[in-house]
C-alpha cells in the first residue's frame, strides 16, 4: 500500500511538471512574446514600451532562466504577474475563486444526488416503459447545451413567471437556478456511468441468489448493488472537474455572476497570457489532485483493485 501511494503521488507530480513544461513550450512557440501580443491586441504598440515592459516582467531573460524562475515561482505558489492589471496572478484568482467554489461545489453535490436519484428511479421504477424513459434521460441531458438551458430557465422564471431577477441579487433563486443548471449538466455523465455499472452488477449471480432468498428489489439495490457500483462512478469524478470548469464559465456568463469563469473570459479577451497560463496550471493541479485522491480512495472502497491488479489501477482500466 505504501509503495502504491508513493507511486501515485510521484505520477501526479510528473503530470503537473509535464503540463507546466508543455504550457511553457506552447507559449514560447507563439510568434511573439506575451508582452508584445498583449500590447498589440488593440493596435501596434511603441517598441520602447514593449522593451520596457519585457524587462520589467522578465521576458528579456534567456529561455532557460525564464523556465526555472517560473518553475520556482510555481513551487512557492507564485504564478507571475497579470499583464492587464499588473497585480499577482494568484491575487486575481484569489479575488474571485470563492464565488466559483460556492457555485461549483453546490452544483457538484446536487449533481451527485441527482445522479443517484435518477439511477435509483431508473432501476426501481415500476413498469418497463417508465424505466426505459428514465434510462433515456441522461443521454438527453448530455445533449443539452448549458447556456441554452440557462437561458430557457431565465426566460421562463424571470421573464414569464417573474419569480427571479435577470441579474444576480442575493435572493435564493439567483443562486439556486445556476446551481441547478450546472448540476443537470454535470449529473448526466455520472448517472450514465452509475446506471451502466448498476446494470453490470445486477447481471452477476449473487444478485440472483439474493432474489432467490427473498430479498426485496429495493433492499438489493440499496444494500448490495449500489455498494458494488459506486466505485465505478467515483473513477469519473476527476473528469467532471473539466466539465465543472467549462460549465461554470458558461453558467457565470449566462447569469452574469462574477467568478473564475468571468476572469478566464476577460484574460482570453485581452490576451493576458500569464493569467491564462496561471489559470491553466491551477486547473491542471486541481484535476491531478482530485484524480490522486480518487486513486487513493478507490482501494479503500474496493480492495480487489490493489490485490488483483498489482499497482496502478489506471494502467489496466484505461
Amino acid at each position, binding site marked *: 500500500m505504501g509503495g502504491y501511494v508513493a507511486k501515485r503521488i510521484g505520477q501526479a507530480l*510528473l*503530470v*503537473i511538471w*509535464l*503540463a507546466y513544461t*508543455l*504550457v511553457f513550450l*506552447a507559449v514560447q512557440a*507563439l510568434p511573439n512574446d506575451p508582452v508584445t*501580443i498583449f500590447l498589440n491586441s488593440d493596435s501596434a504598440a511603441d517598441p520602447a514600451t514593449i522593451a520596457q515592459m519585457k524587462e520589467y516582467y522578465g521576458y528579456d531573460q534567456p529561455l532557460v532562466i525564464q523556465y526555472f524562475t517560473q518553475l520556482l515561482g510555481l513551487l512557492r505558489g507564485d504564478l507571475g504577474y497579470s499583464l492587464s492589471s499588473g497585480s499577482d496572478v494568484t491575487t486575481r484568482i484569489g479575488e474571485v475563486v470563492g464565488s466559483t467554489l460556492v457555485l461549483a461545489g453546490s452544483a457538484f453535490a446536487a449533481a451527485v444526488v441527482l445522479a443517484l436519484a435518477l439511477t435509483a428511479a431508473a432501476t426501481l421504477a415500476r413498469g418497463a416503459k417508465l424505466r426505459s424513459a428514465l434510462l433515456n434521460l*441522461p*443521454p*438527453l441531458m*448530455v*445533449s*443539452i*447545451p*448549458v*447556456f*441554452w438551458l440557462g*437561458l*430557457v430557465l*431565465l*426566460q421562463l422564471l*424571470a*421573464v414569464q413567471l417573474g419569480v427571479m431577477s*435577470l441579474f444576480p441579487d442575493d435572493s435564493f433563486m439567483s443562486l439556486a437556478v445556476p446551481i441547478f443548471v450546472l448540476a443537470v449538466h454535470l449529473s*448526466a*455523465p455520472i448517472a*450514465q*456511468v452509475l*446506471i*451502466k455499472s448498476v*446494470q453490470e452488477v445486477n447481471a452477476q449471480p449473487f444478485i440472483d441468489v439474493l432474489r432467490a432468498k427473498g430479498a426485496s428489489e429495493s433492499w438489493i439495490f440499496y444494500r448490495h448493488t449500489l455498494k458494488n457500483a459506486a466505485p465505478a462512478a467515483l473513477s*469519473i469524478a476527476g*473528469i467532471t*472537474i*473539466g*466539465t465543472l*470548469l*467549462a460549465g461554470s*464559465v*458558461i453558467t457565470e*456568463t449566462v447569469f452574469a455572476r462574477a467568478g473564475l469563469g468571468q476572469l*478566464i*473570459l476577460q*484574460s*482570453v*479577451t485581452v*490576451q493576458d*497570457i500569464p493569467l*491564462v497560463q496561471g*489559470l*491553466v496550471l491551477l*486547473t*491542471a493541479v486541481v*484535476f*491531478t489532485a482530485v484524480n490522486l485522491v480518487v486513486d487513493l480512495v478507490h482501494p479503500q472502497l474496493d480492495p480487489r483493485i490493489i490485490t488483483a491488479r498489482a499497482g496502478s489501477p489506471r*494502467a489496466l482500466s*484505461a
Partner: protein
Amino acid sequence: MSIVADRVDAETAAAQAPADSDGERRAPALLRWAARWWVLVPLAILLAWALAPALFTGQDPITGVPADKFSAPSGAHLFGTDHLGRDVFTRVVYGTRQTLLTAGLACLVGSVVGTLLGLLAGIAGRFADTAAMRFVDIILAVPGFLIALILVTATQPGPLSLGLGVGIASIAAFARLVRTEVLRVRSRDFVQAALMSGGGYFTVLRRHILPHVIGPVLSLIAVDLGAAILAISGLGFLGFGSPPPTPEWGLLISEGRQYLSVAWWLTTLPGLVIVAAVMLTAALGRGVNKAFRF
C-alpha cells in the same frame, strides 16, 4: 468533457444490446434496418443544410426586412425573426455549415492524431506505450475547454483555432479507446494463431487487428462530432467563434440573449436544433457500435 459521457453512453447501449436484439430478431429485416439507421435521414438533412442552404429557405441570412422585426414564429417565419428582421430559421440553416465545418475539423484532428497515438501505444512496445499514455494524461489534465481557450488567446478567435483547440482536447479519448481495443484484440487466440502460422507483423496488424478497431473508432467519431458541436456552440456563445454577421449556432443564441425579455424564440428554437443535432450523432454512434459488434 461530455465526450467521455457519450462514450459511456455508447457503451451503455452496447451493454443493453443483447436484450434489444431479441426483440429485433422477430421484426422483418427492413424494419430492423430502419430502426437502426433512421438517424441517417435527419442527419442527411443537416448535411444538406450545410451544403446547399439556399434549397431550404428563400430568405437572406445577413440582411433582414426591418419592418418584420421581432415577429413571433409563424408559417412565413418558422423560428420567428430577430432585431433586424432576419428570419431565424434561415440563419440556423446557413449557420449549419460553419458549425459542422468547425466541429468536423475538431473531429478530424482528434480522430486521426488520437488513433495514431493509440496504435503507437498499443503495438510499438512498452516505451512508446508509456510515453504516449503520459502525453494523453497531460491532455486529460487540462480541460478541453481551456485547451481551446489557450489556442484562441494565442492566435485570434475564429473557426480554425476553435476547431483545432477542441480537436486537440479530443485526442485523449481516441488514443485511449484505440489502445484498449488493440490490447484487447492482440491477446486473442486468432491473433496468436495468425502469428504462429507465419503472418508478418504488419500483415497481422492490418488483416486481423485493425478491422476490430475500426468499429469502436467510427462509433466514437460520431459521438465526438456531437460533443464537438456542443463545445463549439458553447465557445461560439462566449464569442470565440466567427465574428457576428456570420450565422453560427452558438453565436445565434448569444445574439438572442440580449432580447430574452421580448423574443423567446431567438434563443429557444436554435437551441432545440443543437440538442437535436447532438442527440442524432449520439444515436448514430450507438447504431454504428451495434453494427460493428462481433
